[in-house]
């Protein structure tokens, strides 16, 4: 009953949304890319997508500059 977020083990919570997980882990950057088990989750899906148990989650944030 756990998740792997950016390579680190995090406790799994039943029926938690992506938005809930991001809030719990204090990912406060506004422009992020989220993938769950390799699938891109768009921002409009954060409130409706439930994070499955044993999921591998990658979160990266985009910083201006180029």
């Amino acid at each position: 009953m756990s998740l792997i977020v950016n390579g680190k083990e995090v406790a799994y919570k039943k029926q938690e949304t992506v938005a809930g997980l991001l809030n719990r882990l204090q990912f406060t950057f506004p422009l992020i890319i989220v993938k769950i088990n390799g699938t891109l989750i768009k921002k409009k899906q954060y409130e409706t997508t439930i994070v499955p148990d044993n999921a591998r989650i990658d979160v990266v944030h985009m910083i201006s500059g180029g």
Partner: protein
Amino acid sequence: MNQEKLAQITTILSKKTVGIAGVGGLGSNVAVALARSKIGRLIIVDHDIVDESNLNRQYFFQDDIGKVKVEALSDIIHRVNPSVSITAVHTRLMPGCMHEPFHGADVIIEALDEALSKKQFIEDVLEHLPGVPLIGASGVAGYGQSDRIVTRELGNLYLCYDEHAPSSDDDVLLAPKVALMANWQADLALTLLIGDIR
């Protein structure tokens, strides 16, 4: 130098196409590095013209000021390597169809400036061209502490990443860090394009 290996690499790269979204600090440096590596074809897309303020980090020259960036860069690339086939697109990429100029690319480089544009471009490419490796960069502002840069691999998305870097909105963009990240992207592109050879 191992000339036999170099010849093998050149043969492989001469048949490959790389798409580059944005030819500012990242994109112009990526393009020149790939041209020197004898890439076959480049698709370069940008809406901007060369400004004097660009010269502190972008691969342009004094006499390029005022020129359309993709046209000025095409000339520079051909001075390095006249064999590169270039598709130069002078347009602003619009969210929802930012991937469109890049059909046919073997690898795509995200070389945009603003964080929002980077996110939109990555989402468009992952959705519409999921089979094409995409190499982005995040955290190119400032100077020093380059040991923090890592490659994050998220499936087909590769990100040259310094998660602790400042935003260019609050900090400076300078040639060494920008060129470092650009060449990191170009090196990753070569790794993906060449694959395993002996």
